């Protein structure tokens, strides 16, 4: 009995402290937080028309799109953003031949060591090299970019909620603040040096619009390079860099599920048969 009495007293004590010292003052001064002004503008990421080929349980990479996306990365993004977890050899997964991968790698300049003097230098890339970082270090990156360090893009689509659509929306979503909404929050303004983008976490992003006009990139495969097309292509490419095994994962999943379904049905039937003798017989 004493342990139960003690428990009741302890329980009422804990709840009493919680109620009188935390809950009651909180309830008396109840005030839901005021959302910052930028919440008025924020929007959830949207998908490009037609979505992406790798979505859904049967999704597959669209190699042509990934190659276009790589071209956009190389000609636009790579000026500021690295891709440190990806190696040139991985490009063969996009449908490039071995020779093409070698040629592509050689187009890039990577840090190296002079074989004669031992001094640090640069050399053309080899398929085994990782993509080089555009800046020597974070300090250099910050100094060149108004104190905002351009993040590495290898994992970007996994590091954001709804990442693929987020990258697409962000790239294609620069513009002016909606004047009607702006009228409701007169205090709001985009600080100098930042750019308005309704898909960014606080709608003011340090990155200048990277993809600005149609035809900014001349696609090797002749696809019309609209802003939306380029944004979607590079979003697809960055989905591949974030998880090169994405399609393989889904393709492995089906036979595994199929086998397990078969095994589970067998397990059910054997369970049923083993237990059959124990069931009450109906008269």
């Amino acid at each position, binding site marked *: 009995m004493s*342990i*139960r009495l003690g*428990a*009741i007293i*302890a*329980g*009422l004590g*804990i*709840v009493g*402290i*919680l*109620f009188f*010292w*935390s*809950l009651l*003052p*909180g*309830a008396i001064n*109840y*005030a*839901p*937080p005021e959302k910052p002004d930028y919440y008025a503008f924020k929007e959830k990421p949207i998908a490009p028309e037609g979505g992406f080929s790798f979505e859904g*349980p049967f999704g597959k990479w669209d190699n042509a799109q990934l190659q276009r996306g790589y071209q956009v990365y190389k000609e636009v993004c790579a000026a500021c953003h690295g891709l440190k*977890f990806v190696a040139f050899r991985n490009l063969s997964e996009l449908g490039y031949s071995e020779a093409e991968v070698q040629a592509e790698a050689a187009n890039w300049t990577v840090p190296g060591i002079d074989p004669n003097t031992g001094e640090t230098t640069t050399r053309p890339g080899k398929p085994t090299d990782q993509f080089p970082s555009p800046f020597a270090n974070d300090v250099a990156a910050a100094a060149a970019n108004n104190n905002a360090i351009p*993040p590495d893009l*290898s*994992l970007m689509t*996994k*590091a*954001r*909620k709804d*990442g693929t659509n987020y990258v697409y929306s962000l790239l294609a979503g620069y513009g002016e603040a909606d004047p009607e909404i702006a009228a409701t929050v007169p205090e709001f303004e985009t600080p100098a040096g930042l750019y308005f983008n309704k898909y960014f*976490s606080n709608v003011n992003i340090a990155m200048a619009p990277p993809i600005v006009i149609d035809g900014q990139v001349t696609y090797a495969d002749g696809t019309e390079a609209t802003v939306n097309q380029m944004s979607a292509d590079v979003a697809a490419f960055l989905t591949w860099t*974030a*998880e*090169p*095994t994405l399609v393989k*994962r*889904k393709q*492995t*999943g089906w036979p*595994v*599920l199929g086998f*397990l*379904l078969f*095994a*589970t049905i067998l*397990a*059910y039937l054997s*369970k049923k*048969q*083993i*237990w*059959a*003798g*124990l*069931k*009450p*017989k109906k*008269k």
Partner: protein
Amino acid sequence: MSFAWAKQYEPKNDFTKWIDEKLPLPRLVYNAVGAGYPVPRNLNYMWNFGVLAGFCLMIQIITGVILAMHYAANTEVAFATTEHIMRNVNSGWLMRYAHANGASFFFIVIYLHIFRGLYYSSYKAPREMIWLLGVVIFLLMMATAFMGYVLPWGQMSFWGAKVITGLFGAIPLVGESLQTWLLGGFAPDNAALNRFFSLHFLLPFVIAGVVILHIWALHIPGSSNPTGIEVKKESDTVPFHPYYTAKDGFGLGIFLLAFTFMVFFLPNMLGHPDNYIEANPLSTPALIVPEWYFLPFYAILRAFTDDLTIPFTGIVLIQAKLLGVIAMFGSILVWFILPWLDKSPVRSGHYRPMFKKFFWFGLIPCMALLTYCGGAPAEQPYVLLSQIATAYYFLHFLVILPIVSQIEVPKPLPYSITESVLGSDDAAPGNSASSGAKGAGEAGSLQPAE
């Protein structure tokens, strides 16, 4: 240790006879999970989760040992080696996704196992020791899972480690020294990562050891069952093998279907995107949240928003943070005294009308609310909701349970497990042996179908 009618292990050939003389391991297995362990015949599918939890522990140890072959516990490279596993190690992505989702599924299974125990009062005499060891396993699991989440050294790894180890700082006088000593520094860094890795590798084997004790303790009174009445005679039980090996086999199939579906098609759903950003001590995430299975306890921690002061004097007796820490640990420690708080002679919630209402309409919604609030920002109305839910949580175990077990009038229990399954039992008083002998009696025999 077992019922008188339990089948005895009989070695069939010279080799098994020789083994049985030197090291009777096959006999041990036979008596533990073979035909030599008589189990109540009426267990429902909620009794599958013990075996499933053991299976989860195996998945975690196997995938974990493989991951450890490719991972390096150093803040400089931990994040990169994790990505190396995902990209360059053959099937490394599968091992890592299975390990990460395996942790989540382990907790799903263990929560169902625990709440099964709570509903059917499996913690009551003579099974207190099984329950106590189970709570120890749960605490070890929480420590292991927490340290495992730190290893990839992403943003949530780092900041989660910082928040949780910061809890030790709330202890009066020695708190800050203790925190520094535990971390090997003033903030989570290389020293902390190394010891977390070491302990994360060690603790699963400690868990495995306590699991053996848990099962040993189980085999002394034998398994509980949904009616909560004790086994009386042979017709109340069936041998574990083949009956429950078959039933657990089917349960395992369903479990694996759900588990592999998550691993192959939604592997990141239960994770947080921020953990794909490398740890950065200079950049705090907008919202620091633990893994989903810690959310109820995280909500209890944050429910205490104000210091305990002497009114109108401003003298602080206990700081809010320390109150939260005490409540969070207390919310699990209270399970240790549960067998002595609930004095109802009836075990199963099925026959306890009042207890049943508090369980389904009190405890379960309370846990759901705590989980929801734990993942929400520390602002109204979530703070108020988590305070209400926290209050109910402690009231449920410490106040409602002892009182309900005192005043409740339970429903009549069946005479035996046999009666609960077959609708009648020849041995029951007032049931003449002749009437049901041909129908129910035969059906109750222990022969499996051909």
